[in-house]
């Protein structure tokens, strides 16, 4: 089981080193800008492509839109990715896996919710087996609406993410977008993570579930896997 480090602030030793260097404020600022530029222009994607949006995600990586133009390539393992693109409906069965894969990604990392299913659950949001938006499980940086969004919109979302990365790492606050019309239209029975109407109990249970990661393996399988090295479970979700 991977260590859950999601609560700990991440600090790279490099920053420590630079902060301790005397009289190098100017230099560190410039270096920081450079590092920021590097991160911004090399966002490697881990596709959490579950359904329809996954096809449009593939189309965005293919010839016509070609996300490689902005230095974005697709990696199959969460260990080498920066952005998790959640493309498609996330079900109750899948959500713990998404959370685990998110935990396996190295900091700094971002999440893009692509399509209305990943944003709010869309018309499946009241269904027994669908979770109402991926932001009830992991933090989301950019929302790309659409059912599914066109590849161009995904590209636009990635560009927006670049801007956000630049602002955030420069120490600026990125205010969340306020869209009252949309908020009126979308009235999920379960409030979003920041919503005051959201029952506290739900968030509590979700957090608890996510922490303990109660993956529901069949009993015989668990048995078959335990005598092996304890790390078996570690990467399985990742692959």
């Amino acid at each position, binding site marked *: 089981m991977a260590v859950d480090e999601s609560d700990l602030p991440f600090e790279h030793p490099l920053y420590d080193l630079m902060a301790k260097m005397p009289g190098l404020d100017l230099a560190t600022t410039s270096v920081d800008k450079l590092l920021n530029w590097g991160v911004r222009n090399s966002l490697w994607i881990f596709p959490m492509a579950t359904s329809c949006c996954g096809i449009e995600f593939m189309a965005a990586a293919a010839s016509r839109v070609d996300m490689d133009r902005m230095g974005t390539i697709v990696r199959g393992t969460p260990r080498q990715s920066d952005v998790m693109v959640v493309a498609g409906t996330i079900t*109750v*069965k899948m*959500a713990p896996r998404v959370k685990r894969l998110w935990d396996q990604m190295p900091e700094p990392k971002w999440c893009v919710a692509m399509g209305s299913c990943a944003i709010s659950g869309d018309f499946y949001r*009241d*269904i*027994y*087996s669908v*979770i*109402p938006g991926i932001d*009830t499980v992991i933090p989301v940086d950019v929302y790309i609406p659409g059912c599914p969004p066109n590849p161009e919109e995904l590209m636009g979302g990635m560009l927006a993410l670049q801007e956000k990365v630049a602002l955030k790492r420069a120490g600026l606050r990125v205010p969340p977008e306020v869209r009252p019309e949309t908020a009126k239209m979308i009235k999920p*029975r*379960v409030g979003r993570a920041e919503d005051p109407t959201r029952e506290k*109990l*739900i968030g509590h*249970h*979700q957090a*608890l*579930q996510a922490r303990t990661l109660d993956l*529901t393996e*069949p009993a015989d399988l668990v048995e078959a896997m335990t005598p092996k090295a304890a790390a078996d479970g570690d990467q399985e979700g990742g692959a």
Partner: protein
Amino acid sequence: MTTAERESAFVELLRARFGLAEDAEPPPEGFLLAAEHHFELARTLKQQHGYVQYVSVVASHWPEVPAKGKVEGDPEHYEVATLLRTVGPGSHVARWRVRIEMDGALDSLVPLFAGADWQEREQFDLVGVRFADHPDLRRLMMPEEWVGHPLRKDYAIETGHLPWR
């Protein structure tokens, strides 16, 4: 044989061996047979009449409240429709329904058709129908520890299942 000829042959077979009333017109819901004929009919169709392709199984839940078109006070029960198909030109789907009680079980078709395995598991998972002699009757769609069968009529669409809802 054309599809229409196969259809009439199928009705003849039902009348001759599987307890369909002689004068019964094909109802719009499909033929309702007794549960004990279920496996035998499938075997006969597969081995003697060329219905070699397994199509599907559809279970539905009928609660006690008088649903439309049902007799008042009809007890709660399941209905299971089974579909088999002939291949080649003039393909025909043999379709019959079987009614079983809430605590009853229907004979599984897995010994005849390997494809029945997952389909019957799915219907068990979603509707709750039990299949006797199924080699591996587990949930297919929902997680193993899920409570309830979602496609039953008494299962509200937004039934909460903590922690996610």
